[in-house]
């Protein structure tokens, strides 16, 4: 009985559950992002598809070069048009972002969708006060006086837990500590109540105790604002703390997608297995690590077939050299249709149970 009441109030992490919206607010379909360079075309994102309703947090996980940041920058329309080829579709609240004029984009950015970045030190302008930078965003999208905007800025600083907001609002970013700067960034992003928040490694540059504060803050704000959050990170521990869903990216594409407890609990893609086996945990019995051999492929020359096959220890299990010749689709691999992975293995759930799980700490 105790158990059930407990579950009604908090989820497996002890956080209050959120009520997700029905319809997708962010819809990415077959997104391609390519950068032509002197050495050839960099295929940064290659056919990415996902959707996200309001009130839910999606963690995009991957290593450098996986396309997790590039795809999210594309959602915000932040790539330089002249040096980027994009195709596919990105819809925010039903509006198509790809091909949208710069002017029209500015009615989405900062209002409908906002972004916070990894390094709060370099992401805030050093020459303007924190208040100025928050007010600028507010006044761009609301016809209000300077005074009203400042009141709003103070209110936002207070909301994100900055003590003495009246005084802090007139200070410069360098007068803030790292954690406080990231709070200020969040205040700036949320000043117009955006429905979509993209957080690109927002805690990577922070110390662990400060990271915990910021994760709490983001989870808290999301519940209050009911927004959709895309949380980009390479840290599976952070994902376990904050996400509802995970999208695991490798070499420009999703290899696994589904609810967090499923994907981290019983992943079905060998790359996800490799990641889990590479992380030294702070709990459990310390054991040897089983790293994925080799290095991620060059985006200039992607492997044929499954992009992960050159590093995959299970490729021999798939008959007919399929991993090398045929690119698998992102589809449901088991009876569970709420999740999908991109792999040719016939029985990934059994392989995980019998071979991978025993090796995990």
């Amino acid at each position: 009985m105790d158990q059930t009441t407990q579950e009604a109030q908090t989820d497996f992490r002890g956080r209050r559950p959120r009520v997700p919206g029905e319809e997708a607010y962010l819809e990415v379909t077959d997104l391609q992002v390519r950068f032509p360079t002197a050495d050839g075309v960099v295929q940064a994102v290659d056919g990415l598809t996902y959707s996200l309703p309001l009130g839910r947090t999606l963690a995009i996980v991957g290593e450098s070069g996986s396309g997790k940041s590039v795809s999210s920058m594309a959602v915000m329309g932040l790539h330089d048009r002249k040096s980027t080829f994009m195709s596919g579709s990105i819809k925010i609240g039903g509006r198509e972002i790809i091909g949208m004029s710069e002017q029209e984009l500015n009615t989405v950015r900062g209002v409908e969708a906002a972004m916070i970045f990894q390094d709060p030190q370099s992401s805030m302008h050093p020459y303007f006060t924190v208040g100025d930078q928050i007010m600028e965003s507010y006044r761009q999208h609301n016809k209000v006086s300077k005074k009203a905007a400042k009141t709003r800025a103070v209110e936002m600083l207070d909301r994100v837990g900055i003590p003495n907001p009246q005084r802090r609002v007139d200070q410069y970013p360098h007068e803030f500590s790292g954690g406080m700067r990231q709070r200020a960034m969040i205040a700036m992003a949320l000043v117009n109540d955006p429905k979509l928040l993209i957080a690109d490694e927002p805690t990577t540059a922070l110390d662990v105790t400060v990271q915990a504060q910021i994760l709490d803050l983001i989870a808290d704000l999301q519940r209050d604002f009911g927004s959709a959050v895309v949380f980009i990170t390479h840290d599976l521990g952070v994902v376990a703390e904050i996400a509802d869903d995970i999208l695991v990216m490798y070499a420009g594409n999703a290899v696994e997608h589904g609810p967090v407890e499923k994907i981290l609990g019983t992943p079905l893609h060998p790359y996800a297995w490799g990641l889990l086996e590479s992380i030294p945990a702070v709990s459990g019995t310390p054991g040897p690590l089983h790293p994925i051999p080799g290095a991620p492929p060059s985006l200039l020359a992607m492997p044929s077939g499954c992009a992960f096959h050159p590093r995959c220890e299970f490729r021999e299990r798939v008959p007919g050299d399929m991993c090398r010749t045929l690119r698998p689709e992102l589809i449901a691999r088991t009876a569970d249709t709420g999740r999908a992975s991109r792999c040719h293995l016939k029985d990934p759930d059994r392989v995980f149970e019998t071979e991978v799980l025993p090796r995990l700490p």
Partner: protein
Amino acid sequence: MTPSVKGVRKVEGAPLLELDDVKMHFSIKGDGLLSRGAKKVQAVDGVSFTLKEGETLGLVGESGCGKSTTARLITRLLEPTGGQIRFQGVDIAHMKERQLRPYRREIQLIFQDPYSSLNPRHTVGTIIGTALRTHDMVPKTGELKRVQELLEMVGLNPEHYNRYPHEFSGGQRQRIGIARALAARPKVIVADEPVSALDVSIQAQVMNLLENLRSELGIAFVFIAHDLGVVRHFCDRVAVMYLGRVVEEGGRDALYQQPHHPYTQALLSAVPDIGVVRGVPPKTRIRLQGDVPSPVDPPSGCRFRTRCWKAQDICATQDPALFDTAPTLHTACHFAEPPAESIVAAVN
């Protein structure tokens, strides 16, 4: 036992490396006429620990706790402003460069950033060869052979000795840095965040390499990292630093499972843990308020008291010293006690 290297006097029975009340106070340029030299950054303030042959000691803590400064003191890239650093019983804290040379060979440093710590204009062979020559490790004729041996030892293709650092990936560059450190056949390697710039899958490869080298060559490590999981994986003993001091030190299991210092408890509880999805009960969250105070003007008494939920009057007046709190565990806290049940449950 390896024969004593020329120049290094060995005192029998002494631990390999001992830090005794080591201090590093940097003067910051004051406002000239009025306050010159008045302000000091107490980057490291009274750190003591010992390292036995073949042992690995982890130093953990948040930015500004003095762990990297400690690394640079041990390798004598900095001269401490106080205390002793004894290598095999000999104090090297204030040695002049000439006397220091044989010790420099014995204590090698691996850097965090594999990009900036290798000279981009030199081939890998030159980089490692220079390390060999600096310490007169092999005759000129054997140099190439030794370079190739070292490359192979760190898992690189020995034929790639004539390539430049930019031709390697981040993980491979870190391997080059490790090969360079190994060239001197050191007894101690100080590794300052050696894997934190690397991607998860590459990080695990480099960790395994370091572990193999440790068990094969018997090298002792001072392993500095902010990632508590990485430190737990690699180290026999762990010291937790806060604002220039060691606040808790002990055997790996004791420290991770029964931390007695409130800061260690808070630090461990703040680490996001993937275990929750596999049924590990969620940890009791201890959320520290605010930020680490400035090392220019640290709090009186216990330095952690300004963020500590247990702080009482005594904490402001009396500086707690490390004392035995559990088997192999030493804690510097007036109110040291085992962690609450839920934390223990989560980490076991």
